[in-house]
């Protein structure tokens, strides 16, 4: 467990980072992917691991080669996904779906590096696709944001998806 550093996070940082999360959500809702990429550090890591659903008392070891992932992306992989979405051939996204992100439970704490902070948040993504088909993804996020000359950039995002079975036929969205 991460130890809470007694040094408080500055109020202006809290405001700036919370605003950044909201801004990010609005960019993604509007499919402004290139503008979103501007908010990411060049060495960003973007992960969503597959979760285990085991009994609490279960002591079976984790999988040797790994549990597998939903996302395990660096900047190049994120760009690859954006290339696909921008290709004009992703038929499931045309007409564009109604997508809205709700960001909540924002909590900021200091990180080990002086110019970084840890930001916890919850994201709910609503999508209305064909006709009345509405689906919702809920996930928790633990981010590391880094402050540089361009302001805050996202250095790492770990996403915990709260669904044992994905309730939709694709994840053509970013969390």
């Amino acid at each position, binding site marked *: 467990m991460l130890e809470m550093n007694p040094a408080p996070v500055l109020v202006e940082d809290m405001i700036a980072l919370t605003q950044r999360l909201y801004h990010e959500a609005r960019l993604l809702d509007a499919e402004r992917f290139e503008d979103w990429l501007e908010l990411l550090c060049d060495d960003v890591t973007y992960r*969503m691991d597959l979760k*285990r659903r085991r009994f609490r008392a279960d002591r079976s070891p984790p999988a040797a*080669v790994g549990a*597998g992932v939903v996302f395990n992306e660096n900047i190049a992989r994120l760009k690859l996904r954006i290339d696909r979405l921008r290709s004009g051939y992703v038929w499931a996204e045309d007409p564009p779906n109604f997508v809205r992100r709700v960001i909540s439970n924002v909590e900021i704490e200091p990180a080990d590096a002086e110019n970084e902070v840890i930001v916890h948040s919850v994201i709910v993504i609503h999508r209305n696709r064909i006709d009345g088909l509405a689906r919702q993804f809920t996930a928790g996020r633990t981010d590391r944001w880094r402050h540089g000359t361009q302001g805050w950039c996202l250095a790492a995002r770990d996403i915990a998806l709260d669904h044992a079975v994905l309730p939709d*036929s694709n994840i053509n969205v970013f969390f």
Partner: protein
Amino acid sequence: MDVSDLVDTTTGRQKRTIYSNEELYKQELERIFGRCWLFLVHTSQIPKAGDYFRTFMGEDDVIVIRQKDGSIKAFLNSCTHRGNRICRADRGNAKAFTCNYHGWSFAPDGSLAGVPLENEAYFGELDRSKLGLVQVTHVAEYKGLVFGCFDPDAPSLEDYLGDAKFFLDVWLDAMPGGTSLLGETQKMELGSNWKLPVENVCGDGYHLGWAHAGAMSAVQSMDLAGLSVGNSSTNLEGGLSVAGMNGHMALTSLDGISGYAFYPEPKPMMDYLEANRPTAIERLGKVRGEQLWGSQINITIFPNLQFLPGLNWFRVYHPKGPGKLEQWTWAMVENDMPDEMQAAILDNQCLTFGLAGLFDNDDGDNLAACTEQSRGWRTAQMDVFTNMALGRSGPRDGFPGDIAAGLVSEHNQRYFYRRWQEHMQAESWAEVPTYNINSLSVEEPENA
């Protein structure tokens, strides 16, 4: 329900009602999922005594458990007292399964081990020996793949698989170390009839260049038997659509490398294939060792198991009503592959055919829409067609099965629906035909 007019394999026609009719669906649960051998688990997923894995046979919830003696048994995941589910975890290791409702406890061998207040409330009159978990009638393994079957009159698993073993062995038996499935189960809910994804993967090379055009244009390394973005070209010489093996199918390229040539960093994969090619040839013979091992292959075991050496995903579809299914996927590896290669395969499988798979994410909406467009009063009466390359199949030297050239053909789908119809019409296994068309009378060198 009579299904004789719902499928016509001579013209490649299906009535759309087969994707939406409730009565037909119940008949499928009885005559297909209640009768066929169904994939349960890979031995690598339950290596030790007490290891268990929860899965489905049709809509029946099943726990598969490794026994103390190393054998594998499967049971209905349902308490014999009031029917409650006794295991709510996906998998793990357990010494017992205790029902949440009244605390009845079952041992890994299925026996009823404990009943609270057995003497006080039942006055010691409960015959525990008759109240063990209900066992799946047959459980058998084929080279790491464990199957279960509810029907006491079913043929043996080996006979059920028939000549599909020719292709199964390209994955399961090319290397001495065997195979494994990796990681947690990647589960997705689709608003599709279960037959549509099976039929899509068993033979539909036609959709690749169109449905997946977005991913293919982004992932430049993708080249499958000359298929190109926008379906602008294909190469009929590069692959085979193989069917007529008891309802099982294969779709394969023939170059011996294309499965792994897709990878973002194919070099270590190519090195592995080169280093181990002689072993594969020794174990499988020249045709399979040279042309199939390392190729992109889609293998379908009727009714709901598919795996793709090369892209290395392994999948079952669990029906959840006529218009819904759960798709379960894992990455698959040969155990002789070095750890880094296994990790790269797992990562690439998740990237391409995982829950956010660049390719996989293109299919769901098409299959769901085909399902929905079979539900209307008028559309339910309509036909759909798998009539491409009709009458253009035959034998091919060195391969079993009825074979059509190329990956773009609807040859395999016709055989899928033929098998569906054969099962749906049959009252029992005795009425289900067995056929292995163009069976190879003389096997390639036997080494296994």
